[in-house]
Every structure is written in structure tokens, then in C-alpha cells.
């Protein structure tokens, strides 16, 4: 020991073969430990079966104008509302300056299918399911949805108008397979 110490002193700041061994061994050790830690962390992310259930088809043919339904996608509620002409007009007439999270109604619907509003039914505040889909539920001050947990009001386009929620209700990726069927996800 004493000889190696004194010899390293003799060489001053020079890089030695032993330094290389230390760094190489330490580096590989850290890499090995890291590669063992990652599986322990990543196992908590969604498993393959959860990811496999990522899309769902919904039949819209039985929904009348003015009605809404609740579909389930990835374990979350999805609001599908067949909006009245009045509701669409109301949503399109809102100036963007009035919005906390500015988005036009056109950006939130499919072209040619403006009647249909498809949204993830989860309040962007802390994840409650807003009311306003079922008949007789409180639709809030803007005729859309109202979240009872912390009082967020959404309009007929699902945009946040009042309350603590920071963003509009999320629009999931969806596509019209034909005029009365959509696939979400």
C-alpha cells in the first residue's frame, strides 16, 4: 500500500493504469446497478394487457339530438353528446378572448360532424367526472358540464369557463368509421 501511494505521489497528476481500472470497474458497476434498477421502476408503468385495450368502437345510431351517452375507454369515461343547433351556435359564437384555454369549437369537433362532441369525461383539475351527461344533472353556468368536486364549469364545447380547472376537457383521438360509428383511441 505504502509503495503504491508514494509512487502515485511521485507521478503527480498523471493518469495511471490503476486509475483507469478504478473508473472502468466503478463505471461498469454503476451501469450494472442501473440496468437492474430500471426494470424495478418500469414494471410500475402500464402492462401490455392494459396497453392492448387502448381502443374501443362506439355505436352512435341510438343517440337523439340533445342526448348524451357515457362510453368507457381505457377505464375512463368518455362523454359523447349529440348537440342541438342552439348549443353548437352558442359554442361557436364565443370570442376566444373569453377563454382560459383558447380553442375554437371547430378545433374540438370533426369537420362535417359538428353535431358530435366526443371528450374524455375527466375534469382537468383533479380528475373527477363532471356532471351534465345524464338527464337532470347540473350542467353548470354555461350549459355544458359542471364538476362538483371543486366547482369547474365547462361550456357546450367542453371548454373551461369558470373554476380551478386549467384546461378544456380533453378530446381523445377518434375517427368516424361511418356516419354512426366512431373508434376512440
Amino acid at each position, binding site marked *: 500500500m505504502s509503495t503504491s501511494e508514494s509512487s502515485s505521489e511521485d507521478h503527480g497528476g498523471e493518469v495511471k493504469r490503476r486509475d483507469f481500472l478504478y473508473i472502468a470497474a466503478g463505471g461498469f458497476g454503476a451501469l450494472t446497478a442501473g440496468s437492474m434498477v430500471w426494470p424495478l421502476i418500469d414494471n410500475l408503468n*402500464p402492462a401490455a394487457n392494459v396497453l392492448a385495450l387502448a381502443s374501443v368502437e362506439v355505436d352512435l345510431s341510438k343517440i337523439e339530438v340533445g342526448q348524451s351517452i357515457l362510453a368507457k375507454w381505457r*377505464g375512463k369515461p368518455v362523454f359523447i353528446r349529440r348537440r342541438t343547433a342552439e348549443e353548437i351556435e352558442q359554442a361557436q359564437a364565443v370570442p376566444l378572448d373569453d377563454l382560459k384555454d383558447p380553442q375554437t369549437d371547430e378545433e374540438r369537433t370533426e369537420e362535417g360532424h359538428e353535431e358530435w362532441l366526443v371528450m374524455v369525461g375527466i375534469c382537468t383539475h383533479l*380528475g*373527477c*367526472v363532471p356532471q351534465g351527461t345524464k338527464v337532470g344533472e347540473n350542467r353548470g353556468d354555461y350549459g355544458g358540464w359542471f364538476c362538483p*368536486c*371543486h366547482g369547474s364549469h365547462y361550456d357546450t364545447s367542453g371548454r373551461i369557463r369558470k373554476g380551478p*380547472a*386549467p384546461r378544456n376537457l380533453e378530446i381523445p383521438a377518434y375517427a368516424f368509421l361511418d356516419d354512426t360509428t366512431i373508434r376512440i383511441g
Partner: protein
Amino acid sequence: MHPSRSFEPKNGFVKWFDQQLPILTVLHGALVAYPTPKNLNYWWSFGSLAGFMLAVQIVTGIILAMHYTPHVDYAFNSVEHIMRNVNYGWLIRYVHQNGASFFFIVVYIHIFRGLYYGSYKAPRELLWMLGLVIYLLMMATAFMGYVLPWGQMSFWAATVITNLFSAVPLVGDAIVTFLWGGFSVDNPTLNRFFSLHYVLPFVIAAVAILHIWALHIPGSNNPLGIEVKGPQDQIDFHPYHTAKDLFMLSVLLIVFMGVVFYAPNYLSHADNYIPADPLVTPAHITPDWYFLPFYAILRAVPDILFIEAKLAGVIAMFAAILLLFALPWLDKSPVRSGTFRPLFKQFYWLLVIDVIVLGFAGARPAEGAWLIAGQVGTVYYFVHFLVILPLLSRIEKTRPLPESISQSVLSKQASA
């Protein structure tokens, strides 16, 4: 004067055992011969009581886990099975459910005792911080335990609390998906919460041992907040405090068992006896009472500059707890005990009232007068710790401290 100070076993086997593994010497030093200031009042019993509540929760919890099924399809029914079929299952479950509340009651009294008597000050900063670590672990454990019965409140509490992390910029949603193990609170979430709910109490027990270890280095603080000057200021833990703590334990048990037998659901929500439904949110979600002050802070904060309300609320809530870690350096007054700090004492009780008001505000919907009460309460909470305490330690004229514990105790006796 102190015949029991050192451990001297007479039995040959005990002597042989303790020489090779001196665990009995350690226990004797901690529970029998541990010298304590002789002026400790009943508020000093709550540390022992907290240890007792931890033991109750671990024992009842291990038994409950033998009958419980952590699966979304069976969890709710398995809890009902425990309540209806398992021998004494109703008793063990009610003790565990209410035990969480009483653990928090005991710990809150323990914390507020420390706040009044300045027990967080040097040389006990690390002791105080270890206590806060235990408190944080307790909150995590209690929250995950609340989710296990898989009722409506379980499910929606899990949803709301995990969604707090979605406020983190950029990676928020990825964190939430990671916590859930899916795209919503579901079976993977329930499974991992069960696993963690089982293991965290043992982590708490380990930190509690460190907490006691750190306590026994400087010894206990006392109501006068002055240093122990010598053996004349002290008495042994046993029999004096073992007896005193046992008396307090019986007081605690009278109240605790009163609730368990006569009002077992008083502290919980009726909605949690409705099975979890991911498509229907209960009209009014509130956490259990022990989280209410923090819940009020979460909801009190509006948009601040470029930080949106949701993130600001989350930051404020976590700050309210993490702030306490800095307390030993915020309150720099050299006098520990509130007894000798006329101004501090008044602000201390204002803080107590403030936390209670926050608790009530947290239980109400965040609107109208209660929202304002929550906002005022939140502001005072932060002002108390960040402005008032640092200021007081500079300007306050404290009352003269007694010369010694012994002298103070004897003069009280003389005047009586």
C-alpha cells in the same frame, strides 16, 4: 441515588446472552434507566402513545391482510366479508379504521406540544426532522389504506390525490400514468397501494427507532425548555414515566374504544360503503379529517402570475408541510419554551385556531365564505412561519428563565 442506572443481570443465562448480544442493556438504558427531566407534564406522554398506536395498526393490519383481497372485483366484498363473516372481523377492522384517526390525533398533539415548548430547537433539529419524516410516511400510509376498501370515497380520493402530480409541468401526465400503472385508477393501482400500505408501517417503525435514538442523545426537552444541570433535575423513566404513560394510555383507550364501540363510522364517510364506480363521482369528495387543513390549502390558491391555480395549490400544499423542516432555523429565539415568550404564546394559539379553521374550510365545498376562510387561513399559516416567527425571535422580550429545573420544581412546592 440511581440504583437502576446500569443493567446488572443476576441470572447466569441472561448474563451470558447479554454479553454476546447486549440488546437487554440497550432496552434497559432506553426504557428503565433513561434519565428524564423531572418536570415533564402529561403532554410528554404522547410520544409513547404514538408508539402504541403504531403497534395497534401493525397488529390489526397484519390480521386484516389475512382476509382481504386486493383486487378491484373482490376488495369491497372482502371487506364486507371481514365485517360479517370473519370472527371478530368487525372489531379488528373498526379498531384499524379508527386507529388511523387516533394515531393522527396523538401525533398532532405530539407535534403541537413540540411547537409550544420549542422542542425542535438545537440540539434537537434532527430529532424534529425525523419526526416529520414519520409524519409524511404516515400520511402516505393512511392515504393508501383509505383506498383499499374500494368504495366510492376510496376510488375518488385515489383519483384526486394521484392527479395532484399531473400539475407537474411537462412530465405530469407521465408521472400519473406511472403511479396508476394504467390510464386510470384501476387494479394495478389497488395492488401496488396494498403492497406499499403493508410495507410502509415497518419503515415508520424503523424511523421511529431513529427518532428515539436521536431523542436519547440530548435527552427530552421539558416544559421550562432549559437544560438539565445534573442528576438533581432528573428522574428515571421507570417507574415514573412508565406509570404516567400507562395512565395516559388508559385515558386514550377510553376515548378510542368509545368511538370503536359506539360510533365506529363517525369519522368516515357513508359514501365509502358504496362500491367504487369509475363513471360516477360522488357529489362531494372530502379526505379523512386529518388531511383537511392541507386540503383547504390546496384549494385556496388562485392563479399566481404565470403559475396556474392547480400547480400553485399543489406547491402551496407541499410547501406547508416541507416548511416545517426549516422551522428550527426560522424560529431563532434562544428561549425554547412558550411559557417564557409572551408574544410567541399568543401567536402559537392563533396558529392552533388557524389550523382548525383550515380543517373546517377543507371539509366544505370551496366556495363563498369557506373559500375566503381557507384563503385567509392559508395566508396566516405561511405568514406565521415565514414572517412572525423570524421577527419574534428578534424583537420579543422574553421573561427570565428559572435557574434550574430542580429549583423551579421546589419553589412551586414551597409556594403551594
